[in-house]
């Protein structure tokens, strides 16, 4: 037979693309969510009066930028209508190709703009925009480190629920060593070592002893809480001057760039850890997708048997990925001590490790997407605290929820292949 049947059929056109039930459900639920938020904005119109002012610079800036004033009613109306338009697009199913992504992004932005305007309109004080963004970056820094830790572990097939525990022990180590040595580098090294120890515990039990990884992660978190709490009570608190007064990281303005109006203050007046986080995102991306080590990490996370049959040590690669994650976990933990007051308190990291884990999943196990999710979470937290100072009429808990809704909409709009590494969480037994 001369015809190559396989190739001939492979090149045949696929059956007409039809919407699968899963896709349809996702599209409709996204549409309903956006529509709901749009309706909420329009309801909010009743209590929107006057104009909303947004301050682009604060009193200490060299170059004073004008305060932007937008008409409250019109802006909220436009934002609400944009949401409804996007919702109609989703619900009617008429969006094709790139359009669903675009509509999702527009709706997400409109939600944030709409609610900010609604909250700020008719207030005494302008909304400080540069504070908002600078604060976002600062809050996102430890989350980014945590997310990178999670991405590295989970890409190799190890679920890391103990990012929180790594944060906590690293923050504690940074406080103690920083206080004893008065040296920032020493504190950072101690934090990284603490992160590595926690990562090694995760690795040895999950990789060598095949312990259920989620249970193990929870236990490691409890261990970190217990050990740091005990040492804090017994050792640190009685002599807090000696053990709990680590040096604090100063902002490092980048010469030249830092004096750019608005952006300089937002982007280039951060501390060393924030710059390091930005570089790390790129480094982890490079490692995962452009190096042989990264190829092997992804292979053992997807199909460990396949890696084994070509002579790759599954355990070795998983160990290396978890330990590399530990370095980032340690750096992230050090931020809590060194970028704030230089002192540690019990259960200091308040769930940031779990938020980082959420960012990993929402960012689809991709370093860059996960970091963008971290920025979202940072933005949300910062906005809630800003709005509290503006004394808006609505309860602050409610304010806290809305931007998360915006996040979900944005994520849902970016429809694609969402699935974890195939072997994530499954111990490899030879």
């Amino acid at each position, binding site marked *: 037979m001369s015809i190559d049947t396989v190739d001939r*059929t492979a090149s045949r056109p696929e059956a007409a693309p039809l919407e699968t039930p899963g896709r349809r459900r996702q599209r409709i639920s996204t549409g309903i969510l956006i529509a709901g938020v749009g309706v909420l904005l329009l309801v909010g119109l009743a209590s929107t009066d006057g104009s909303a002012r947004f301050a682009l610079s604060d009193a200490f800036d060299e170059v004073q930028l004008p305060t932007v004033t937008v008409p409250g009613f019109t802006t909220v109306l436009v934002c609400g209508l944009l949401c409804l338009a996007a919702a109609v697009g989703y619900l009617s199913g008429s969006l094709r190709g790139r359009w669903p992504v675009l509509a999702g992004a527009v709706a997400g932005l409109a939600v944030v703009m709409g609610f900010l305007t609604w909250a700020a309109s008719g207030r005494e004080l302008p909304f400080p925009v540069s504070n908002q963004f600078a604060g976002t970056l600062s809050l996102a820094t430890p989350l980014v480190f945590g997310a990178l830790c999670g991405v590295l572990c989970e890409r190799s097939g190890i679920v890391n629920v103990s990012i929180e525990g790594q944060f906590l022990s690293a923050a504690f180590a940074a406080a103690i060593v920083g206080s004893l040595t008065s040296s920032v580098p020493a504190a950072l090294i101690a934090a990284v070592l603490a992160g590595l120890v926690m990562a090694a515990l995760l690795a040895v039990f999950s990789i060598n002893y095949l312990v259920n990884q989620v249970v193990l992660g929870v236990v490691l978190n409890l261990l970190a809480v217990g050990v740091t709490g005990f040492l804090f009570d017994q050792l640190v608190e009685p002599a807090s001057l000696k053990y709990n007064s680590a040096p604090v990281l100063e902002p490092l303005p980048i010469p030249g760039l830092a004096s750019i109006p608005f952006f300089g203050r937002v982007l280039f007046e951060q501390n060393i850890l924030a710059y390091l986080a930005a570089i790390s995102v790129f480094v982890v991306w490079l490692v995962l997708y452009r190096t042989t080590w990264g190829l092997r990490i992804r*292979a053992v996370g997807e199909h460990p048997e396949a890696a084994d049959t070509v002579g790759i040590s599954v355990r070795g690669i998983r160990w290396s990925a978890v330990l590399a994650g530990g370095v980032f976990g340690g750096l992230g933990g050090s931020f809590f001590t060194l970028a704030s007051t230089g002192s540690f308190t019990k259960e200091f990291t308040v769930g940031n490790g779990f938020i980082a884990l959420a960012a990993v999943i929402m960012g689809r196990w991709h370093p860059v997407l996960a970091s963008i999710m971290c920025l979202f979470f940072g933005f949300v937290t910062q906005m809630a605290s800003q709005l509290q100072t503006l004394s808006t009429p609505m309860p602050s808990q409610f304010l806290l929820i809305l931007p998360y809704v915006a996040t979900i909409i944005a994520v849902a709009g970016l429809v694609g292949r969402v699935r974890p590494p195939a072997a994530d969480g499954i111990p490899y037994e030879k």
Partner: protein
Amino acid sequence: MTPSSPPAVGTGLRLRGITKRFGDLVANDSIDLDITPGEIHCLLGENGAGKTTLMNVLYGLLQPDDGTISIEGVDHAHETPKEAIAAGIGMVHQHFMLVDVFTVAENLILGREDGTTGLLNMAQARRHVRALSERYGLNVDPDAVIEDLPVGVQQRVEILKALANDAKYLILDEPTAVLTPQETDQLMSVMRSLRDEGKAIVFITHKLREVREIADKITVIRHGKVVGTAKPTDPEADLAELMVGRAVTLVVDKKLASPSPEPRLALKGVWVASPNGTLAVQDLDLDVFGGEIVCIAGVQGNGQTELAEALLGLIRVLKGSIQLDGRPLTGLTPSETIDAGLGFVPEDRKQHGCVGTFTVAENLILNHYDEHPYARGIALDLSKVRQNAAHRVDEFDIRTQSIESTVSSLSGGNQQKVVLARELSRTLALLVACQPTRGLDVGAVEFVHKRLIEERDRGTAVVIVSTELDEVVALADRIAVMYRGRVVGIVPPDTSREVLGLMMAGVPTEEALASASSTTLAEEDAALEASLEEMHHES
């Protein structure tokens, strides 16, 4: 050259006294095997005979409990896959060792990346793939993602992956299980050209037809032992006897079907989505009459499983109607479809067919435990359960120590008999059996086939989903070929393999009939027989 002559010293592979135990089970019992370059060596044996275990030992994936492996005169004790690869052994696994989300090029360089800088050189990897596919005539796109490729092409990638390491000894583990007949032919010509290049090929299979077509040497393994060698010219019945250990009838004995005047099962425009959200069955029409067997043929993953599960009510039908004896089946739960007279033999008996930790007696009433006579109010009438079990064990010749043994302690064949005994022990309107003989030894296959035909002769509409073409041809009164969720065509069982193969690749019936020569299966077999006879005379 006699088939049993060992290779010259310093060449080829020598396995001596290889023993591998898993707990009490001796998977390999002091096996000796010689592999010579330039030969296609078939390892023939039933499922579970220990062929794959032996090859995993050779490839370093398993460590033998006893015995030695010598590769070209060098002893390799406690070998790892890495050492086996370095020594020139390549293996195409039955379950492909490919990372689904990687491209072809990424899969090919995995584990053998050019490691001077630590950076991936994908441009070089692509060139490498192209060079390899050109050299061996195995056409693949280096940038294609594995999960988007048809199974046959994935297998090519597996073969290329083994060849990329300059393998001199290529092990192919049941490579034809997932292929259409045409793809099998192509694979065989690739195997021949590799052999002619001087490579040694170990071809693991249980299909006699293929062995006789391609083998240079045949080693037969039964219950973990080498039971003999054979020549490809030996008659099929002799090979089967050697493989099974007793004489077997290879032809299924069945009378002509006498179908009912009206279809008992009628599917119209049925759409079904698979659990992962893709449309598995699309706009499918099918009528099945009482007293006939319709086999659904096709390469694995073309919607057959989803169709069967939709009939049972395990997954929802999106659109269309399914009627059994004029009553709608759509929208019913599995327990309602069972009450409507459906018997179901699932594809994976361990996962879905029976509960391994339950006893034989309990498994035999799983689908009607809540009915007369087994249920008395909320209690089970255990004496009735035992009576039933004793009766079925006897009727279906289930080899078990007692009716109180757990099902997981039985062999695969006997587990399948438990499932059949349960499903066939009531009056059925429709029997749906998926891969009813997968992984069974020949004796059990005979038995299962006999019972399926008996059920047909009682007037039941029988639907059998099978990827084994031999089984399809042997059992079917009509064959419905499925491709990408649709029925390509319905043909009689004497249709040639070539036509069926083309249909399994999506070629419409008329086109397939036109492009294939009109040889029937019987003629094809006769031709093969004649050519083998000829070879026999020459040698």
